[in-house]
């Protein structure tokens, strides 16, 4: 394989929460992800960076079950998860947020989150069909806690499409948090934000990272260098380098391929 490692970034202490082995995804003749073998350490922030088309979002889509890999394996805490459907992975504590807001625009912020907190408490028993959804108090209470956490309590009854851009991005994160994950994949949480909104979001991301393993796709290099424990640099579907922010900053290949161009 052509990929190379700068160093072993797992520091040898924590067992990886997510690992991939020779992960490959082809779309026709295009190889979007090409033989990626990675380990994501638990309780850390890992950022995936790389130029557009490097395969970052495809990697997310593979991790979260949206795509099936063409080749290779993905394991969550040692159990293989490739080929599993998204809802199975959510049950196992793996969630994602989306680069483009992907919620229920016509519902209120609270109802958006409530739909998500309701999921673990509903199934196909008679009461799930015949009880009133508002009587599911656990879901509402849990939704209120999440809104508090993503700083949206004051706009809980606003329709999602009426929220400001920054608030909508926070709602996007809140919906994913509702599943009570231990691994959270965030696709560009600060994209398109004003400096003020970005600062608030970075604070939120760090708060979330205090008890959840995070994998971020992020373009803002200052944020990446600032908050990441591990950085994975991708280029043309392959892992170009992997290491701590300092190691990545000083890596020549990375500078040539990516950082140098900025």
């Amino acid at each position, binding site marked *: 394989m052509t990929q190379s490692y700068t160093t072993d970034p797992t520091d040898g202490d924590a067992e990886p929460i997510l690992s991939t082995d020779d992960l490959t995804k082809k779309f026709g003749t295009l190889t979007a992800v090409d033989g990626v073998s990675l380990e994501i350490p638990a309780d850390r922030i890992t950022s995936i960076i790389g130029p557009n088309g490097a395969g970052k979002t495809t990697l997310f889509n593979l991790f979260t079950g949206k795509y099936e890999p063409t080749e290779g394996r993905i394991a969550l805490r040692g159990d293989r998860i490739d080929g599993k459907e998204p*809802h199975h992975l959510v049950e196992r504590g793996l*969630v994602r947020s989306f680069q483009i807001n992907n919620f*229920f*625009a016509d519902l209120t912020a609270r109802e958006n989150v409530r739909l998500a907190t309701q*999921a673990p408490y509903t199934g196909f028993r008679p009461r*799930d069909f015949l*009880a009133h*959804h508002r009587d599911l108090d656990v879901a509402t209470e849990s939704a209120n806690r999440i809104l508090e956490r993503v700083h949206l309590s004051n706009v809980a009854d606003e329709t999602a499409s009426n929220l400001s851009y920054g608030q909508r991005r926070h709602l996007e994160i809140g919906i994913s948090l509702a599943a009570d994950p231990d691994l959270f994949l965030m696709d560009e949480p600060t994209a398109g934000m004003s400096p003020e909104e970005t600062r608030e979001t970075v604070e939120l991301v760090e708060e979330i990272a205090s008890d959840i393993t995070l994998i971020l796709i992020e373009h803002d290099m200052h944020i990446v260098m600032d908050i990441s424990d591990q950085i994975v640099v991708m280029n043309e579907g392959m892992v170009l380098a992997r290491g701590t922010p300092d190691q990545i900053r000083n890596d020549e290949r990375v500078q040539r391929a990516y950082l140098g161009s900025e």
Partner: protein
Amino acid sequence: MKSVMNLAADLKTAIGIGETTGPIGEQVLSSQGRLAALVVAGVLAVFAPVAQAFEPFWLNILTRMLVFALLALSLDFVFGYAGLLSFGHAAMFGAGGYAAALAIREVTTNALVVLPASMLVGVAVAAFIGWFSVRAKGIYFAMLTLAFAQMFYVIVFTDLPATVLDVETITGGDDGLFGIPLYEAIGIDFTSRLLYFYLTLVLVLVSFAVLVRVANSPFGRTMQGIRENEERMQFIGYDVQRYKLLAFSISGGFAGLAGGLYVPFQSVAQPGLLHWTISGELVVMLLLGGMGTLWGPMLGGALVIYLEERLAGFATWEIILGSVFVVVVIFAPRGLAGTLISIKNDPRNTITHVKQALRNYVEKVRG
């Protein structure tokens, strides 16, 4: 694939039709609405004997209107409320009807046995069609349901079960099954047309209450979420395909019940019940009535049957129905239900709304 779906969506927005008046994030049917439903049922109950005394034919029309209201309701539960564009509901309607015909002929005329059997057959047919179709989205789902429904039509029309089992006849082929009697007993004798009307009225009301209840349940909420954003529901942790299959099967049960009520009343089960034109007519009923409200399509169903009956004398009745449809599309894009809601919420601005609708039509559709 995406582009076809976008096209369908654009088309829907362009002509403004198919906009759901679905109460997003709110209670389906307010307490006022419930009261109104009971009042309508009460008026029908009182009106029926009067109508029968005056002109017995009216009772036939009323019963047919009720049956199609139920059928439109069952379709709206998946089509308008859950966003599954079924163009094959005639299959469940017809299957329920044939199940009733065969059960009455061969087993019993007891409604307590036959009607649940019709529902179960409706559920089974819907589960079969749904199992093959729910992974497809939008227009593809519509085409699959249409194709499967036509397959069932052909099975009934050619009496395929009889060929397979090597007996003389089961479905009666293109003639259908004749001389199906009315239900006889659940303690009451329903061979009286008036009592049959009451049986239908009660079952339609109960079905409506049950489906409204389900629409407001956590399951109903989940279906609404799937209608709005299927992908996100998956990533929230819902087994979307299973939910869709269940919603489709539940709907199929009520379509089957409608068939079970219709066939003994008409005393005949014929392949036309499963024909795609019935599915198509149902979609018209939904659009006229106002998709996603559950009660709107019931009005739409009743209205279409009424017009059909009253205008059938004119050779051009389909033109009249078509004209009504066009007028509704232009002036009341959210159907009868949408119009009634906006008049109720804002009675003074009714004229403004009509003008706005006309302006939308001129600007958006005519360019």
